């Protein structure tokens, strides 16, 4: 099986991204949905690095660093939001938060 490395890396990134997408669509636990976003961001970063090694430039790795920083900020804010949701609704079911009860 003679696969070009770029093809193989992009296939792996695509498979990981689709797995994260399936998870975010299927699961109802809101922490699992945050986790799935992490999986998808990671897959996107992997695709960037693979493209960077394909072209031999540093741009893809720079983008990977930005994705890393964004994931860190996203997780901290997301966890704080989940904490507020948990204190208000006493559950982590995302369907409970579908109505705004305003």
């Amino acid at each position, binding site marked *: 099986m003679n*696969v070009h*490395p770029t093809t193989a890396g992009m296939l792996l990134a695509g498979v990981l991204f689709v797995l*994260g997408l399936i*998870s975010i669509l299927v699961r109802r636990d809101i922490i699992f949905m945050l986790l799935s976003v992490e999986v998808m961001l*990671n897959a996107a970063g992997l695709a960037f690095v693979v493209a960077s090694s394909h072209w031999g430039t*540093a741009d893809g790795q720079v983008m990977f660093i930005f994705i890393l920083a964004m994931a860190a900020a996203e997780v*901290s804010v997301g966890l704080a939001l989940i904490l507020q949701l948990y204190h208000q609704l006493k559950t982590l079911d995302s369907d409970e938060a579908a109505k705004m009860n305003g």
Partner: protein
Amino acid sequence: MIGPAFYIAAAIAVLATIMVITRYNIMHALLYLVVSLLAVAVVLYLYGAPFMAALEVIVYAGAIMVLLIFFVMMLNLGKESAEQEKLWLKPRIWIFPSLLCIILLGELVFLVLQNHQPAAEVKIVDPRAVGMALFGPYILAVELAGMLLMAGIVGAYHLGRQKEKTLHRFLENNEL
């Protein structure tokens, strides 16, 4: 042509991610996700990005996962947490992630010992070039990332504060 090292790491990454999305227990899913991120770090190393592989381990598998794990542990404090933990630590639960980790470790040791050269089509981008690009043409984006992190800190602090009541101030008098 890429070697078996890539296929093993890729298979572990996909397998661990499948285990992440099929677990019912959030803690098991988090531990499988750590394995998946370590496998992706091996793949990054094979693609000529050793600095990115180190960052993946330190920031993703280290900092972000520890944040999530602490958060999950913080949410279910209580009496049942001890027996729940006893339930979690059954051998059939931790033996499969450990097996995946051990395969990854063996692969890493093998790669380090044989002084692995990357595949012919893969070009190595050294961290020096990344740094030069980061603080050369991308300096504005670096500053924006710094502002994003600052906003994340402030937002997490603001949202994470415990409030006594979440009612609107006009409703408070009616309740009492």
